[in-house]
């Protein structure tokens, strides 16, 4: 066997021996140490449960609020005017008066009847003049 091969064999033996010794040492830990390790483990597991519980509580608190916010948003989107709607023409100041006039019982040409005769006379005059 060459030097490298022997060295590898030695290394392998050292590794195996070290592993076995260290592993055996874990079985011989004092009771106090094992007890402390168990306590630490339980504390970590409890902390895990509490952490998840807090997350659920946060979820429970925010889900209804989120649902309300989503409903409000949906309502706004449904009821809000669409951007593509035609622009609203501003109502002129006199338009309301016209509506009143149209709605009233008084005839439009009551005492201000149109003088058709005048227009006929004016048309004749214009056609007869050179």
């Amino acid at each position, binding site marked *: 066997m060459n030097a490298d091969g022997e060295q590898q064999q030695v*290394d392998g033996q050292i*590794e195996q021996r070290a592993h076995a010794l260290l592993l055996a040492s874990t079985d011989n830990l004092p009771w106090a140490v094992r007890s402390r*390790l168990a306590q*630490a*483990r339980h504390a970590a*597991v409890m902390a895990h449960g509490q952490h998840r519980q807090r997350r659920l509580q946060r979820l429970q608190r925010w889900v209804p609020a989120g649902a309300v916010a989503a409903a409000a948003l949906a309502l706004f989107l449904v009821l809000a005017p669409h951007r593509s709607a035609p622009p609203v023409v501003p109502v002129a100041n006199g338009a309301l008066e016209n509506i009143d006039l149209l709605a009233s019982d008084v005839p439009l040409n009551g005492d201000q009847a149109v003088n058709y005769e005048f227009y006929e006379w004016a048309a004749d005059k214009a056609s007869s003049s050179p």
Partner: protein
Amino acid sequence: MAGFATLVSPTDLPTLRKAHLRETQDGARALETFLAGVERKAFRIAQIALRHDADALDVVQDAMLQLSARYAARPAEEWRPLFYRILENRIRDVQRRRSVRSRVMALMPWREDEDETADALAEAPDGSPTPAVQVESDEMLAALERALTALPNRQRQAFMLRNFEGLDVAGTAVAMKCSQGSVKTHYFRAVQALRARLGEFRT
């Protein structure tokens, strides 16, 4: 909107709560099994690195709590390298704190009057075997611990994680936060150093 309502409807909360409880219990069981499987090895790794039982216990407890708080939601296969990464970080923190403290204490003229004798002794690299092992192979274990203690930090980490804990190269690289090539190099050098110190060890 309908999808959203289906997803988070408040009427589903009891079901959600039950599923959450079941998941929590399963997760807790898995976490407990995992921690029970690694706690002794983790303690021995910390103990050999720090040469102080109480500090080693604190470090292991911190690592357990950190794992449960931050990484318990990750798949269980990822826990082992993550746990050892946290552990190694904590070990390094303690070593740095000690280093700073010893430097500060060195500047204090009244340091000899301090009642820190216990800590100073604990920090001293005396290499004596811990009372953890009371078996026939005490001498060998003590020699191994001395040799491991004398290794540079990275080499010791690589050796302990690969050889003792049984992590593969990839897992060790995650735990040590370095490349797989570095892990192989550190491990090879650690074995070389151990061979030089423990030539008769194999018999």
